[in-house]
């Protein structure tokens, strides 16, 4: 300890080694998965040269096409609906001081983050199965409704964070200049809030696109999304086709996240 040379207080023995190891362990499996999606051979065990064969196979597969379309439709609806209601809720719960029942609102909004997904999935299975019997409707509506609900906290958090960092002076100025509350919102609050709204919508989109458990329980026959399709395809090893779909989904996630970082960074 008493060495005369510069001593860095932030280093702890072994921490850097374990940290680097953690990063390697986190990425090695994902990278392997990506590499093997370009494997030309039929076997998942042997490298048969670089090829886009399995991407072509996946793209031509009608079940995959259907599942992709369904996943995207649900994710778009769920992110639009959840972001809209989450924006309203964020406006209602921030920058207006404490009010009665505020904690209650927080608890309900964040509830999907806390309750294990399997429990929500079972609950929705019970609830929607009786609604399905009662109404005869078995369309995508149930999935869109369920996804919209559990995406709300993911959309809400970045919007709330953005709002809390915003000065109310601009809105006060607008109000002083006789803008109606709607005009103030439309021309002052919303443009300032937009990065948060976009960030929230993107997170909601990813969360909806990735969902497995709730979708698996809520879907009616023939309503596979991409993740439930992949889970259904699972045998003792991954098919190269599922590998290719996984890589494509992974690429989409990384792309959205990069945009997310860009959008949320700009404000600083």
């Amino acid at each position: 300890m008493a060495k005369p040379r510069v001593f860095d207080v932030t280093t702890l023995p072994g921490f850097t080694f374990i940290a680097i190891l953690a990063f390697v362990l986190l990425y090695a499996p994902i990278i392997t998965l990506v590499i093997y999606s370009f494997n030309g051979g039929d076997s998942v065990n042997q490298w048969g040269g670089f090829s886009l064969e399995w991407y072509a196979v996946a793209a031509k597969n009608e079940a995959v096409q259907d599942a992709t379309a369904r996943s995207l439709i649900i994710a778009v609806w769920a992110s639009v609906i959840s972001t809209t209601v989450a924006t309203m809720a964020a406006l209602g719960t921030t920058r207006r001081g404490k009010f009665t029942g505020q904690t209650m609102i927080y608890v309900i909004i964040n509830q999907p983050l806390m309750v294990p997904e399997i429990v929500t999935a079972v609950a929705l299975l019970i609830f929607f199965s009786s609604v399905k019997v009662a109404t005869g409707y078995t369309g995508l509506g149930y999935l869109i409704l369920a996804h919209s609900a559990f995406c709300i906290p993911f959309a809400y958090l970045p919007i709330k964070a953005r709002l809390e960092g915003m000065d109310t002076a601009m809105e006060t100025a607008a109000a002083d200049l006789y803008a109606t509350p709607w005009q103030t919102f439309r021309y002052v609050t919303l443009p300032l809030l937009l990065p948060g709204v976009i960030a929230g919508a993107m997170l909601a989109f990813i969360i909806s696109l990735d969902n497995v458990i709730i979708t698996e329980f809520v879907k009616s026959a023939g309503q596979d999304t991409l993740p439930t399709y992949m889970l259904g395809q699972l045998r003792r090893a991954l098919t190269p086709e599922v590998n290719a779909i996984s890589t494509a989904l992974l690429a989409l996630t990384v792309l959205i996240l990069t945009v997310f970082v860009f959008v949320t960074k700009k404000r600083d």
Partner: protein
Amino acid sequence: MSRRKTRRSKGLDGWLLSAPALILLVLAASGPLLIVALYSFLEKGDYSGVRWILSGEGWFRVLFERDIFDQTVSLADANLSIFWRSVKLSIATTIITFGFGLPTAWFIATRPAKSRAFWLFLITIPFWTNLLIRTFAIMEVIRNQGILNTFLMHFNLISEPIQILYTDTAVLIGMTYVYLPLMVLPLYAAIDRFDFRLIEAGYDLYASRWQVLRGVILPIIKPGIIAGSILVFIPSLGAYVTPRVLGGGKNMMIGNFIELQFGQGQNWPLGAALSTVLLLVVLVSLIIYTRASSRDDSNG
């Protein structure tokens, strides 16, 4: 205009604006949980579903079973071993992710400001990547013809593949892998606010590195440790995908056991009772968490 609003109208606006979100959530998330609690007290239907007759059978079957011939009651060993496996694996996952997570979070927080965002981004990618894909990725690594076994056999460290897939170890490896970012992020948030001069002060007072870690760093980042542990423990306990993919049919956890009651098992009341148990355990963990973190606030 909103400056002069009374407390009551502020609250009303708040509720009105939040109403659409709340309605959606009550309809498709919170509300149905009450139905689950209700179903746990009903009688099992002939094939699936329930009969609307009050019954404690669902709850009884959580822990006990009756012999089909002489109706003697005994503890349901199969259920108990599933509960034990779930708790054991979740605690182990929490401990191992902490072992990796603390150094990782520390490493990120002590990077220069410029590269910190990059390292943080590297943690966020797996965090947002589909859990199923990450589980598939780990499956590719540990299966018998996977890279781990191939690697070990190539260097003659083992003569035949080690069977990891479809064991508890596989589930543990998988959960540690998929939930690690959930541990790192709150720990990072806590360390990021940490005042490093305190370490200096510790060393000046002749503390060893170990004493500094135990006496200075850990107590101060405790809220982050609790948050990370809860964030890993809760999803581990309710895990479904990871044990299904990596554990095979045999090594079930509570999540798979619940699913079974709504699928082949055809015992909705039992499934509902199990779900309620899981929900209660999560609720208790959250209460402990809020208590612990609010106590920290009042102290510090």
